[in-house]
């Protein structure tokens, strides 16, 4: 059965879309490898929470969105932004705290935002994006558009009060919001099973009588299709969906955390063997969606793009001291 089903053909996706998702995942991977590099050279200040290993979720989800849709992101947000088409140069400049960054150096990795692409901000407070996304959904409803909003958050975030409060409102009012829980099994060092009695976070959807779906978060096509249904449902005005993608972060909680003491090496290795990019690549080749040569070119292009982003960011100047007093209030009011 399983091997008779050809997901790529049966899902009826264009080659363009299929390739784009491969590109998006690669962009995330290379972008973050580059961050690791810059961090180790002392060029990146602060904390880098890497998304490596979880690329399929952001990419599978965001490929259902347009620039008119919205998403709230997390402390582990690079993937969401890249999948939503944000500019790697301005992202990298922000990560390095530079003037040309999306936030002029004020936000950094934990707060990159790109309002032009509907990204309402990465967020340093676990669970805080969930109500904001819910408000964005409320807004679409009031304004009468068919925009949807995605709230990304982790397994551990699903223990915050905001998860409950927000999904409750979205369910009661049938708001067009997709709640995407990236269950990578841990919140920093804490195994979700130690602090929650819930095998699948998606089960929590029962509390609000909305659909809750568990999906293999390392399978970009599965994520894509499940999200597609949720997005269509939301656009039809039928309300929110809770999607749980099971996945794993390959690295520590952030660069600087080896991520080992609280996880078994075996576990990490098993998950790394199920690399979302590698398996997807094999699929694209097996299903003859693309040739090896095409994929090699794509990979080269993306490496190049990331390289350029890094160079751009490195060359970008630091913001000037006095800029610290800008951007608090809209003009002409100024700071005080």
């Amino acid at each position, binding site marked *: 059965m399983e091997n008779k089903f050809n997901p790529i053909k049966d899902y009826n996706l264009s080659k363009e879309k299929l390739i784009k998702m491969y590109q998006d995942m690669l962009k995330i991977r290379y972008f973050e490898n580059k961050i690791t590099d810059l961090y180790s050279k002392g060029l990146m200040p602060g904390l880098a929470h890497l998304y490596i290993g979880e690329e399929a979720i952001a990419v599978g989800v965001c490929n259902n969105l347009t620039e008119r849709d*919205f998403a*709230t992101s997390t402390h582990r947000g690079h993937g969401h932004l890249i999948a939503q088409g944000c500019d790697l140069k301005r992202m990298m400049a922000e990560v390095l705290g530079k003037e040309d*960054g*999306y*936030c*002029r*150096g*004020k*936000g950094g990795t934990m*707060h990159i*935002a*790109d*309002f032009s692409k509907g990204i*309402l*901000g990465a*967020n*340093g*407070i676990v669970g*805080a994006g*969930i*109500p*904001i*996304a*819910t*408000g*964005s*959904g*409320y*807004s*679409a*409803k*009031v*304004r009468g558009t068919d*925009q949807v*909003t995605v709230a990304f958050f982790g397994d551990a975030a699903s223990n915050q*009060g*905001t998860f409950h*409060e*927000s999904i*409750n*409102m979205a369910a*009661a009012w049938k708001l067009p919001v997709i709640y995407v829980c990236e269950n990578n099994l841990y919140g920093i060092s804490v195994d979700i099973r130690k602090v929650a009695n819930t095998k699948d976070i998606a089960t929590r959807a029962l509390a609000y009588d909305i659909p809750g779906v568990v999906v293999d978060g390392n399978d970009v096509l599965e994520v894509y299709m499940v999200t597609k249904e949720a997005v269509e449902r939301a656009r039809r005005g039928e309300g929110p969906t809770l999607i749980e993608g099971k996945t794993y972060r390959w690295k520590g909680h952030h660069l600087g955390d080896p991520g080992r003491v609280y996880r078994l090496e075996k576990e990490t290795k098993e998950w790394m063997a199920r690399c979302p990019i590698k398996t997807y690549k094999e699929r694209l080749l097996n299903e003859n969606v693309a040739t090896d040569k095409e994929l090699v070119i794509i990979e080269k292009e993306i490496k190049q793009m990331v390289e350029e982003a890094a160079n751009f960011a490195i060359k970008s100047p630091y913001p000037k001291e006095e800029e610290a007093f*800008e*951007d*608090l*209030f*809209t003009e002409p*009011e100024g700071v*005080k």
Partner: protein
Amino acid sequence: MRKITYGQAICEAIDEEMARDKSVIFLGEDIEVLGGNFRATPGLYEKYGGWRVRNTPISENSFTGLGLGAALTGLRPIVEIMFCDFMMLAGDQIVNQIAKIRYMSGGQARVPLTIRTTLGAGRSTAAQHSQSLQAIVCHIPGLKVVMPSSASEAKGLLKTAIRDDNPVVFFEHKMEYNKTYEVPEGEYIIPFGVANILKEGKDITIVGTSNQALKALQAAEELTKEGIDAEVIDPRTLVPLDKDTIIKSVKKTGRLLIVDEGYERCGVAGEIAMSILKDVFYHLNAPIERLTTANVPIPFSPALEFPLIPDEKKIYQRVKDMVLG
């Protein structure tokens, strides 16, 4: 001039702004058929419908955050938090999100959001329903803070708040809703950052926030009988603060008493004092003083509650002590 209640003035401000701009929405607990806990805003639900005027569940942090999400995506929400004590449940969204998202995004975000809430003791509602927590939001950069005194002030300032493209926390005094005041007909707005001199005087300056400005005025009128000529200033907005008006006044009078219903420690009264100390220091005839609620939770029994809160009598006495003593 016509007379309406403080509550009616608030309601008019919202009504006019909702009529004027269809992106204005209004969210909060019990605002639909009841018109809010203090019955200040009846009729809006019937007039503007259930999407623009909506009862929220009791989920302060998330409905405040919902307001932020809506503000970021094209609406101009008014979020009502029934008592300012409950702002503490929405602390993260107010302090870490709403106040900061414009700054953190390097100016990308625009947050046209007004949080309406109530302050003040005097109703025997004890420690969790009687606080005046304006100092907490003043402490956090990125929030404008408004403390209207009378009904006409409330109306003009609330309209400005709603039109502002920045987050504003608007404090209504719960003892005022049913009081009647003269309020001009028709539309008007009062700009932020411009203090209002309620009475000119030469012996001492009294700055009073919220309805303490009116109590200060009463005290000042009484004090004229003692031959004390006090100047009374209503700062209207604490962020931005019109320091210039206060400085000018204190340079003239040489004395300053600040009256605020919040707790004293790290409160608004001390801040107003310190923000001008350098400018007025060499003009002072006496140390600046504060008259606030003491540093204890608000007790239930009226026998304990009233002695703790500043009022016209306490202002009167303190001014006398400062000027004569």
